[in-house]
């Protein structure tokens, strides 16, 4: 198993993606970053790699508000293929929305580890990534 933490960002917001990548890089942890601009692109990647699980991310930062396939729609599709995936994937829902409707909805999906309100911030992101690496050891 690779000791790199495969980190996936799914978000249509260019600026957000830019800040996320920059921040993750500043943490300086062994990681491999992949980026998708909407849910459909992300789920297609997973469907394409069903027999190539090592390619799967260890952690996904998933936006809600995206064109074509939003975060919740991605989760619906993901849950469908989840039984076929051996790898444990941690998913964080990351959104600028402070709408209780969105938060409640995310909390009701067990496959989502947490709901994070944008911006994540360096400190929080570092903590998450370190914890994930610890668990893998």
């Amino acid at each position, binding site marked *: 198993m690779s000791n790199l933490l495969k980190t996936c960002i799914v978000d249509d*917001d*260019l*600026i*957000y993606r*830019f*800040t*996320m990548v*920059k*921040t993750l890089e*500043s943490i300086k942890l062994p990681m491999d970053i992949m980026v998708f*601009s*909407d849910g459909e692109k992300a789920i297609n990647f997973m469907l394409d790699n069903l027999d190539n699980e090592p390619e799967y991310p260890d952690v996904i930062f998933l936006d*809600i*508000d995206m*064109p*074509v*396939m*939003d975060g919740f*729609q991605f989760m619906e599709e993901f849950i469908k293929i989840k039984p076929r995936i051996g790898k444990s994937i941690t998913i964080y829902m990351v*959104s*600028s*929305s*402070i*709408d209780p409707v*969105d938060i409640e909805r995310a909390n009701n999906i067990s496959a989502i580890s947490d709901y994070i309100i*944008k*911006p*994540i*911030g*360096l400190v929080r992101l570092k903590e998450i990534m370190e914890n994930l690496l610890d668990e893998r050891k």
Partner: protein
Amino acid sequence: MGINKNNSESLEKYHKIFIEQTPTAIAMLDNNMVYLAISQRWLKDYKLEEQEVIGRSHYDVFPEIGDDWKEHHKKCLQGAVDTCDEAPFQRADGSLQWIYWDVRPWYTTNGEVGGLLMHTGDITHQKEKDLEKKRIEEILEKTNEIARIGTWDLNLITNEVYWSEMVREIHEVSEDFIPTMEASKNFYEETESRDRFVNTVRDSMLKGTPFDLELEIITAKGKSNWVRVVGQPEILEGKCTRLFGIIQDINKIIQSEKALSKAHSELQGIFNSKAIAIITADKNGFINRFNQGAEEILGYSATELVGSKRPDVFLVKEEIAEFRKNLVQSFNKDPSLIDPVEYLKSHDLNNTREWTYRRKNGDTFPVLTTLSSLKNDKGENEGFIAVATDISKLKKVENELLKKNQLLNFAEELSMIGHWQWNTVLDKVEWSQNLYTLVELDEEFVDLKFDTYFSFVHPEDKEIVTHYFDKAVKNKEFYSFTHRIVTTSGKTKTIQLLGEVITNKKGEVIEMIGTGQDVTEIKMAERKFRGLLESAPDAMVIVNEKGKIQLINKQSEKLFGYTPEELFEKSVEVLIPEKLYPSHTSHRKNFSHTPKAREMGSGKELYGVNKIGKKIPIQISLSPLHTEEGLLVSAAIRDITKQKLAESKLIEAKENLEHIAQKLSKQNKQLADFTHITSHNLRAPVANLNSLMELYNMSESEPERIDLLDKFETVIQHLTLTLNTLIEALKTKITDTSEGLENVDLNDVLKSTNEILSGVILKSGAIVKGDFSNVSTITYNKVYMESIFLNLVGNAIKYKSEARAPEIFITSEVENGKIILKFKDNGLGIDLERHRHKLFGLNKVFHRHHDAKGVGLFLTKTQIEVMGGFISASSKVDVGTTFTINFN
């Protein structure tokens, strides 16, 4: 004694020898009745051979000799001679000996009585024969008499005829009738019997054969008599000299034979009958005959019962006991002192009663049984015969009749009805039990007339009663009426009379029959009902089966403004609006068909009409009333004018509320939309700004910082655009929609849209067509209308299919009085399954188009909604999308 002793001794000796050897019974006794000599025969006759008799007294030898004989002997010793031809001699051993005797004295030489000489003979044997003959003759005589047998004798030499008395009797001739051969012959019936008689007699005389004939004679008195003639010829030297024989009257025998045979066959018939059970029992009670009928009725076979069972196998124990008790009572004896079984052995029994028999299978059924004793020829009871018939059917009918009668009585009692029958010709009246009860008259009073009833009629009602009965006679039809009576105890009762008039062929009234019912309580109930009616809070109208008004209460008078007299017997439809007549009539008929309490016209608004023609909203409950006059319908009517008013107010208030609620929910929705917009569209750039700031602070090089500042600019531009859109939307929302309204020509709008979008239309080769022939102008905000067209046509071109040139078709139409505008394209289409909920949201994009901002539809929706309309979409991916705008 003897002079010459020797001589006399030898003489005596000779005498003794002589006596001893005499073949008859002789005894010589001296003066003291002591035996001197006896013959052997004597000893034999009197069975004295074993005894020494000589020297013993005669009376010692025969102690049985009585004093009378001793007296005779004394006389003989004095010289008398006693002879007797026959006399019974009762011997000491009990046997009877018939003897004759000759007792006389013997004399000594000097002439003195020396003793007695007895000569006897035993004639017992002969005597018995004589007696027997005599007995036989007697019997014969008697038998002849009983058997009616007479004897006849014809001497063929003298031609004399002898007839015995019985022969005369049989021929019914007088005692002095002299029978002759010819006369005898002529008694025989001439057609058959006479010829047979003559021929038979001739043959008999010729051949010497006896004969035995049964013939018919006609007696001197002209009666036909059957006789049996038996004859025997006597032949002397080959010639018949005599013909004799008997003649027997067999008429009775034949007749009784006939009767017997008839009776026998009848009995046999009865005995074999399947309907009648005949069972006989011997004196010990064992069944000895069990006929087919008994087998049939009781289910036992004769072989099962005969000789081994008593009748109690099919009898009920209690009934046997009861029967015995009754039997003994009928003998007038104390039951405790007498055994009926024993008693019956010597007494006749002939009893007919109902019994319960039990079949072999256990079923019981009633029978009528005649029980008689059977006697033998000595008149002793030999047993019993039971003749039984199954009367279950009879019983059933009887019971049913009884039950029906009871039922009738019961019914009359319950309904307080009595019935009567009046023979108008004889003025004879019959009442049922309950009619007596009704007038409280004793049932013993049987001599009923019309006046009997009339006397009970209340004095004030006598006229009514007379009137109705007169009318019944006149019209030959009885009209039901009620009147009062005063009973024997002084109670006043109201009676309703119903009747039927019966006439003879001539049409004259001969009888009336009918019922009388105590309707006092019904009348009272009617009064109570009336009171109830008046106190009811609703208007009550009572209608008969034909729909005619019978009764209304005060409330009805008030509601409809009619008096009861005005409405009586009027059709109930006068209270109903004219246009409802036909349906009401059929409804009414339905109700009388299945009468049950219910609301009238449920769910419908009902109206009544008062006297002055005003429509009144009403509510009606119907309920059937079963009365003696038939089915009545009571309608409770409530004026609901006030309720109606309140109701319409309520509906109005409800509608207002609904409107407000709709508005509120709309506003809520807009509020939610705003929350969404602030969350996503405003917070997202702010979050980006924060992130960029963080990175900017961390940045260590100048080029990095410049790059970040570049990014800042992008975010700020985006934020500005968003805020501008929002302001525009909010501006739209707070605009007074009534301002800027004008008649917008749709063709004009399409024209200007084409002009504005000419660049992209040209570039994409799009065809944009409009058909506004249905609706060409809409009163609307012109700027909004132009914005709607621009956004929708622009979108259609922007999201065109790569495979085909865009075609956009816009039509207007009117649906349910509302104007509808449709924009139909052949573009990419939208997956509405996924995106319907955010189709018109701000910044929502569904295609990865470089120019997709998610602003157009958001603004379009805002503009349409603010004018009171709504927009919807239908789409098929890769086929096209149709947006539909409903204007208010």
